[in-house]
């Protein structure tokens, strides 16, 4: 007894195992993982056993006819090969054929009914996160309608349940468990950031507010934690544009974050609790509509997939959910926001179609109509719309150190697509795509600029007279 107490006492803190089959739900564990930076984590993983009994049970409960059929009827015809940007970027490596990637991972798991070993699972992890961004492009081209993106999403869930998940993804879902956000931003931090942004900008935009928890507003605006954490100016610009458009809007305190790294991680329980927070805010504040920021996977997580995690039979969120681009177009078309045509972008520019709200939510023409308001010489990438290639950084890939090399190779496809347009300016209304394009420039130095819509709109928007700062008027009179 005494001895046991002693060994426990002596056990240093960092001896707590980093790899486990359960999500991270306490701050101490989260800090251990953050401090480790993945080094010990992946070493530990090499010795982490597979719980085959649990695996069988999970498969029985979740692997149903849709996925089993896809795996069974795949004609092994190879039509999906050249639809995957990883295949193209890797000089047509047969190991990057989507069908091969899924058959050699999920296909084997199902065939062996979960009786697989550690090395096998590490390979699954490296494939599900390192060779697929779940962009769902291949599924559009398969004659049988087999969607490898959907299956890799499912495979990620299996990997997560067995503890074989990239370091950053484990941390990401942990953040959501602990902070209800993908980063360590608390409700207090968020509300303070809102206040700070108002203070910074109200001088130039008199009457500017960021109404927190205003019941009955028309719009509830929900952000990506990166914005308060690293780009608070984005939040300020959103507020300014709502202000200039005369919208009745609010941001929730609890439920302010709409992204879900848990979705990329395959932690379905966490996805549910994350999205339910946002839905609870919609209901608490009795808003008419939701508008999410310029983020692709936030829209996917909160509006497209979220209702299912939350068990909403209709497949719809509690109130209609708009992506930021939908709100922008509406504001432009109704004249709530007026842009100065003289300030249109003169140089040729192109547009990145994010898979998450274009291929996977049909917001295809919305962004093009916006481009007609803001650009004089807009040039399409090829292919575009639903057929666009992933930027190269989706599905969490941008954030995973272990696959940085693979990611950078994958970026070549987007690089060549951009180069082929002959433009030097890429508009991207998605955080992930924005990052990927930034990194693309860093790696390949092709001399491009890139931007979200908000800063472009702020440049061009006409401030109505009654909203202009007073000083200016007085100055003009003097």
């Amino acid at each position: 007894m005494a001895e046991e107490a002693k060994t426990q006492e002596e056990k240093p803190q960092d001896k707590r195992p980093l790899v486990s089959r359960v999500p991270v739900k306490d701050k101490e564990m989260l800090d251990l993982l953050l401090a480790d930076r993945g080094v010990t984590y992946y070493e530990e993983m090499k010795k982490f056993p597979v719980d085959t009994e649990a695996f069988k049970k999970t498969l029985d409960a979740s692997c149903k006819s849709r996925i089993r059929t896809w795996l069974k009827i795949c004609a092994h015809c190879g039509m999906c090969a050249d639809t995957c940007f990883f295949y193209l970027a890797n000089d047509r490596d047969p190991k990057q054929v989507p069908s091969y990637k899924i058959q050699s991972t999920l296909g084997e798991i199902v065939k062996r009914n979960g009786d697989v070993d550690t090395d096998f699972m590490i390979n699954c992890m490296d494939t599900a996160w390192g060779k697929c961004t779940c962009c769902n492009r291949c599924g559009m081209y398969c004659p049988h309608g087999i969607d490898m993106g959907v299956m890799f999403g499912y495979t990620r869930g299996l990997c997560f349940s067995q503890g074989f998940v990239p370091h950053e993804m484990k941390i990401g879902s942990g953040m959501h468990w602990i902070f209800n956000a993908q980063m360590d931003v608390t409700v207090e931090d968020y509300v303070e950031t809102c206040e700070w942004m108002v203070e910074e900008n109200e001088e130039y935009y008199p009457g500017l507010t960021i109404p927190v928890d205003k019941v009955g507003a028309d719009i509830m605006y929900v952000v990506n934690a990166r914005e308060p954490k690293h780009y608070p100016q984005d939040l300020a610009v959103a507020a300014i544009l709502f202000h200039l458009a005369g919208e009745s809007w609010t941001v929730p305190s609890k439920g302010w974050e709409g992204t879900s790294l848990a979705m990329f991680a395959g932690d379905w329980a966490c996805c549910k609790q994350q999205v339910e927070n946002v839905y609870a805010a919609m209901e608490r504040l009795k808003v008419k509509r939701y508008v999410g920021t310029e983020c692709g996977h936030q829209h996917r997580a909160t509006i497209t997939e979220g209702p299912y995690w939350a068990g909403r039979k209709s497949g719809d969120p509690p109130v209609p959910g708009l992506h930021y681009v939908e709100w922008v177009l509406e504001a432009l078309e109704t004249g709530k926001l007026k842009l100065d045509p003289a300030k249109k972008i003169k140089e040729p520019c192109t547009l990145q179609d994010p898979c998450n709200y274009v291929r996977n939510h049909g917001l295809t023409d919305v962004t093009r109509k916006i481009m007609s308001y803001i650009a004089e010489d807009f040039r399409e990438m090829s292919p575009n719309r639903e057929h666009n290639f992933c930027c190269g950084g989706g599905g969490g890939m941008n954030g995973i150190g272990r696959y940085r090399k693979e990611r950078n190779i994958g970026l070549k496809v987007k690089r060549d697509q951009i180069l082929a347009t002959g433009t030097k300016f890429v508009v991207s209304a998605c955080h992930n795509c924005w990052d990927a394009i930034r990194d693309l420039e860093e790696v390949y130095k092709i001399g491009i600029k890139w931007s979200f819509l908000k800063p472009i709109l702020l440049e061009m928007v006409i401030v109505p007279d009654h909203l202009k700062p007073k000083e200016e008027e007085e100055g003009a009179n003097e």
Partner: protein
Amino acid sequence: MVAIYEFVRGPLALISFAVFFVGCIYRIIWYVKGLDWRLDRVAYSTQRSLGIKGAIRSLFHWLLPLNRTTVNHPIFMGATYLFHLCLIIAPLFLVAHVVLIEESWNISWITIPDPIPDYMAMVVIAVGVFFLLRRLTNPDVKIITDGSDYLVLAIAVAPFITGILAYHQIFDNQLMTILHILAGEIMLIAIPFTKLCHFVLFFCSRIQLGMDYGIKRGGAHGRGIAW
């Protein structure tokens, strides 16, 4: 020989048709019962009209060569459309088959005059050879090919090879006829059990993905996905 002929023509034919029909129906029931709106994340039942629209679009664009894959890979897709067309039409409307069925069960339907089905059978075999060569040479296809692919290709093409040999009275005619009937019966029995079950599951899978896109992935925005 006559006894064997009578056996494959009579009881075995009945058994294989029974296995084929029951097996196919079972596959469909198994598929539909296994759909789960929460796991699949598709509101199949509450968004029915969007779902039906999406399903029809999906079938329409892929049963007909109106999709990007056909544009990007005209030779392979052309071959596969031709292969399937001939593979299904030729046996169904062959005079000899329809007569046989009329004799046994007293039902009949329109026929395609000889020798068109004969040419169609040759198309099936020719495309089958093309599929085989492609499997053996194309690295992207090679890496995903396994034994079952060769097996189902053989099962699919065998009735046509034996059919042509029997029709043209090459080799022993009675033996060839027996082999041809056997090959057809093997194919029927194999359909529910091998990946030839795509005969029904193709429709299930395409309808499912069509509903997924129709209901969840953009169908509600009025723009059907551009297959």
